């Protein structure tokens, strides 16, 4: 995908967001004399975003392709986002935070470091570092910050 296409997609998304905001605040009444009302600023900003998105879109159409909008290692980023989402869901619904934290860390360490060549040493190092970080989190947040994770 070209940078121009990506720019246009983002401008379109911003335009949709602006329209949703304008609709959401359009019926908020003004209750104080002299006041512009609760909906004025969000509405004004949504119009501003809409206008500048339009301007940006015209500029993007007139400009060249601008090169390719891609990311190296895109798969790795997407998998990581998926793993974070999975971790959040499991934390929310299962609730064994520290066990899940260890598994999350160990899983990601192993996934990221796998290209270095799989070995028992790599797995032991990953498990050790994951356990160390989990322990640090446990001590810090349980005994110093007093957060029930």
């Amino acid at each position, binding site marked *: 995908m070209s940078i121009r296409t990506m720019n246009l997609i983002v401008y379109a998304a911003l335009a949709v967001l602006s329209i949703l905001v304008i609709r959401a605040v359009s019926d908020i009444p003004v209750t104080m004399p002299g006041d512009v009302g609760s909906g004025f600023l*969000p509405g004004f900003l949504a119009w501003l975003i809409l206008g500048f998105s339009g301007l*940006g879109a015209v500029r993007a159409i007139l400009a060249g392709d601008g090169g390719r909008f891609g990311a190296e290692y895109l798969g790795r980023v997407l998998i990581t986002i998926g793993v974070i989402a999975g971790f959040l869901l499991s934390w929310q619904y299962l609730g064994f935070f520290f066990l899940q934290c260890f598994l999350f860390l160990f899983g990601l360490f192993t996934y990221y470091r796998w290209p270095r060549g799989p070995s028992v040493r790599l797995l032991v190092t990953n498990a050790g570092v994951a356990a160390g970080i989990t322990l640090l989190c446990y001590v810090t947040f349980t005994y110093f*910050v007093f957060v029930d994770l």
Partner: protein
Amino acid sequence: MMDFFSNLDLLMLGSAALSIMLGLFVGMLFGALPGLGLIIGVTLLLPLSYAMSPVNSILMLLACYQGAEYGGSISAIVLGIPGTAMAAPIALDGRQMAKTESPGKALAYSLYGSTFGGIFGGLVLIFFAVPVARFALKLADPEFFLLGVVGLLAVATFGAKDFVKAVISVALGLLAGTVGLDLFTGTSRLTAGYFELYEGLNLVAVAVGLFAFSEVFMMLSARINKAYSFEAHHLKISLTLREALGALKAMISGSLIGSLMGVLPGVGSTVSCWLAYSGAKATSRTPEKFGKGSGEGIAAPDAANNATVGGALLPFLALGIPGSASIAIIAGAFIIAGIQPGPQMMRNNPELIEMIFIGFMATTVGMFFMGKALTKLFVRALVTPNSFLVPAILVSSMIGIYSSKGHFFDLWVALGLGVAAWIMRRLDYSIAAFVLAMVLTPIIETSFRRALVLSQGDYSIFYSRIYSQVIMAVIVGILAVALVKSLRRLRNSRQAATKGQATS
């Protein structure tokens, strides 16, 4: 002042010292590690504010800010890779000195410069904050509204690559700041029925999502198993008196430039660092040494870096207007503690201000000693590959967000914003402008609406007083600069296109 000292107790001092040390350690470490840096360090420490007293959390974040400014120089000197954008000019001479003389001496110039700049910036803050705040008491809602607009315009104009996208970033940030119950009427806005949004978007979740998550995704888009290597000897961090005095002039000029640039919203350390480097070169007796391992070339930008911190705090503490994203995140600690920075705070909480002033100076001195003692440790931390850092940052980010309010909703918000910021950063949108705008929203909206209510809807209130007129002149000036910059960029791109056509 004597009353202040008599009110101090050892426990308070001990906890403040520990907070400063924690902030310095995290700041130096995150500043040193390439790709992380100041904002992520401050962002990850912010959730701890919920479990600390206001003074301790503010001092911790300020210490992190100071520490990261020095920490950025460590990787610039040892690896030639600036840990932060501000440390880029330091790499020029720092790396050369590390190669030709010793990395320890280059690091010492950096540390001495940082400490001098930090103290200088602190003194600027101490001597000017109270008079500025006293003057600010004469300002009313229209002026505060206009000052907020100045801050936003400056960020959009000076700190961004693309003006249109910077304006959209600012508008999105302001929009994000309006989410929740309206302080005037109690009407809920843009909450989509989620009770978690009634108090507004959680600043910790927003900052972590925008800065930490998006940076992690950036790191994942590059090689993450790359381990840096260097020769870890000659790391004694010391200068002779003669060497230190030789760099004094550069430190003074760097500190002056840094303090001044720090006060201006949207300018920040990166610009002040380069200006200090050029200034030191122009006034040096040995300008030919610059770029070849000059101590002055290291000390001046480092002094400017740290002097910027004191300068940047001045408008924030005195007027309540943060001028950069890092200060906006530090503002989060004030918001969490229910304190509104500005002239009223200076008048109503003199003890807090005194603690911040004294703590700020203690932070700088602490940075010197911690830098002397632990720089070797931070140098060794540079070998940590991102494959270990990324998951560790993710976990600490998620715990930080959850510990702020205990809502899973905030974690999902942060993840969503992180993904969006990862895409938008690569398209030159400014997430720093977004956060700054979000933090400024209450000041801007409240001042604007209160002024209108008081004037019964008469807009002339925004330009009827001399103070408003001066601020409006500044706004016009900033807009003129933005216009000139845009026209110049347009002309350059047309020239480049013409050249391209001619060569093809």
